[in-house]
């Protein structure tokens, strides 16, 4: 796990760190005052990732009785009218560790933008565990060494229960930094009452009959990938040329007044309210909506294929309670915990054994037998991966092609 080991004991390390880590010097402050706010953003500020011997680091961690868990809204089981989460309660009962559960992640990019400057300035984010999709932001976190390499001996359940689809993924070989929380499909959802016909294809998002009532994602990775699929291109192997073609068809869609809005998670609200009739959608959201009274809404796997993504648990550097976070991961990778949570959130479960638990213990066959929660191998064959950016320049290229569609 360790890369460049520093010789000597920990006090020497602290001394060396003291030499290399900047403090807020007067000069620094004056430079800020004199007109640049860049001190925190320049490489002169070395990073918290000056930890090089992660084994020693882990060994130095003391067990704690709490941890802070930053997650997306409605991404865990809920009981009653508010903030009661049975899975968390069970975890606390089992381990004595309290969880400060925060629903602070609306989307990958804004959340990354929120924590990146903090990490860059070497400060703790305040979170012990975060959940990030396998988009560029996760890659960037890994490249920046802003994630703590996991101490896998503490998570034996992962090896035991994890679905093959989340073991050693391309974006994190060997699960060095991440373990999947949920996977999911990005397909199409619609309200048959309003569309008045069945939807089968990405082409339908371009149907002029739905003008002003089509929802698209404002996450440009999702947006671009949908257009690529519509054009019959596999996003994972696409080229910048393909991107331009995809952008053109998206621009066409927008210019014709088809698009109601480029949504973040708020699309589900708009879909439920009838503001949009057809939209890019995440499978689990539609499942949840169905179970909460919006029975009309339908999720489809378009004939062109479907995007599969993975949301991953990770520990940001500077975390104060990493051992507790590991304990949670280990807890999550059990059929019981995964089952309780899965029965509520209905995305794709990374623990196949949870199916039996849901079927036999929770007795919810609708979820247990759903091909969208526990997809068959044939379904999995229809899925596509996102394009994996190899550099910031590549990511910028993608941005410069797709951002103007959303922003202009």
């Amino acid at each position, binding site marked *: 796990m360790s890369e460049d080991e520093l010789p000597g004991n920990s006090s020497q390390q602290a001394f060396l760190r003291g030499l290399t880590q900047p403090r*807020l010097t007067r000069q620094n*402050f004056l430079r*800020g005052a004199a007109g*640049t*706010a*860049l*001190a*925190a*953003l320049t490489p002169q500020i070395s990073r918290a990732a000056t930890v090089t011997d992660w084994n020693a680091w882990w060994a130095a961690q003391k067990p704690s009785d709490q941890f802070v868990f*930053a997650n997306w*809204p*409605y991404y865990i089981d*809920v009981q*009653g*009218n*508010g*903030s009661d989460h049975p899975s968390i309660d069970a975890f606390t009962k089992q381990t004595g560790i309290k969880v400060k559960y*925060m*629903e*602070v992640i*609306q989307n990958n990019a804004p959340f990354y933008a*929120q924590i990146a*400057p*903090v990490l860059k*300035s*070497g*400060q703790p*984010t*305040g*979170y012990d565990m975060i959940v990030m999709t396998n988009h560029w932001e996760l890659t960037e976190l890994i490249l920046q060494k802003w994630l703590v390499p996991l101490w896998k001996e503490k998570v034996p359940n992962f090896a035991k229960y994890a679905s093959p689809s989340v073991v050693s993924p391309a974006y994190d070989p060997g699960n060095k930094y991440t373990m999947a929380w949920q996977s999911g499909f990005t397909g199409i959802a619609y309200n048959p009452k309003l569309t008045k016909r069945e939807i089968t294809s990405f082409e339908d998002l371009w149907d002029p009959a739905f003008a002003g009532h089509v929802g698209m994602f404002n996450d440009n990775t999702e947006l671009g990938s949908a257009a690529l699929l519509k054009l019959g291109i596999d996003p994972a192997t696409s080229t910048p040329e393909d991107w331009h073609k995809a952008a053109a068809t998206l621009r066409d869609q927008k210019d014709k007044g088809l698009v109601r809005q480029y949504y*973040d*998670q*708020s699309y*589900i*609200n708009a879909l*439920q*309210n*009838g503001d949009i009739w057809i939209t890019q959608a995440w499978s689990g959201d539609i499942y949840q909506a169905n179970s*909460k*009274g919006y029975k009309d809404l339908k999720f489809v796997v378009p004939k062109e294929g479907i995007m599969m993504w993975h949301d991953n648990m990770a520990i940001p550097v500077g975390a104060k309670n990493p051992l507790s976070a590991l304990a949670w991961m280990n807890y999550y990778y059990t059929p019981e915990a995964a089952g309780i949570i899965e029965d509520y959130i209905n995305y794709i479960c990374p623990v196949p054994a949870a199916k039996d638990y849901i079927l036999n213990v929770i007795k919810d066959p609708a979820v247990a037998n759903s091909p969208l929660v526990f997809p068959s191998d044939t379904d999995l064959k229809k899925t596509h991966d996102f394009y994996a950016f190899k550099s910031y320049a590549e990511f910028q290229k993608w941005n410069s092609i797709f951002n103007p569609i959303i922003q202009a």
Partner: protein
Amino acid sequence: MSSVTTLPATKAYSPSRVGERLLSFFTWAMIAYNMLPIAVMVVFSFNTAPNGHVALKWLGFTLDSYKHAFAIQDLTGALGNSLEVAAGSALISVILGTPLALALARYKFWGKTLTDIVIFADIAAPAVVVGASLLALFLTLNLPRGLLTIFIAHVAFNVAFAVVVIRARVSGLDRALDRAAADLGATPWVAFWTVVFPLILPGIIGAWLLCFMLSIDDLIITTFVAGQTLTFPLWVYGATKIGTPPQVFVLSTFVFIGGVLLALANAALSRKRESA
């Protein structure tokens, strides 16, 4: 004397009576328009919310959301943060703003025009710009974003409003009162606390209330400097993305009622003070 000439004059213009009716109707219509969103908020706080979100359709009257008004801990906590920041930042703003208001209202000094411009720029600067520039500053200073930075930012935009409100009150104050106090043996310090301060106190209270309201309502600037700390508007803004829990409407209704009562009490008090 004047009534003799004006009474028939006003009655003579019947077109202006019609105009007045129209205007009065228009005013009431605008007040209704002004209140519409609040009515929606209050009404829908009583709507049954089976899935934990406020639904567009009327699903039936319920008091459930009121029973569980504080069930969402994050939301309650965010409201607590908001109240704390609003009360505190308003207080600091008033403490900083009162001396400047005195200086601007009572002295001519070098840099006064510049001060005027800075104060106005602070009021008029777009919130995105203020928020973004403060974020840049806090990053430079390695200051962790949280309650403290929200607090600093809120004082930064509130100070100007405090100055303007208090200054108006100070300007209305007869300078002879100071002289009279000095003449009667009060040192400037004593004169301030016995005469000037009690007389500008309504202005100071008004400024505090304004700052409090601006602060508790601020979303844009807070977005930039909040870090992981949530304020009420931030939480609500986040919740709009996925559907608003009815508690948002319930707590807002509480805040609304509390604010109205506070304002009415203040008005009644100042009326009593003025007439007594």
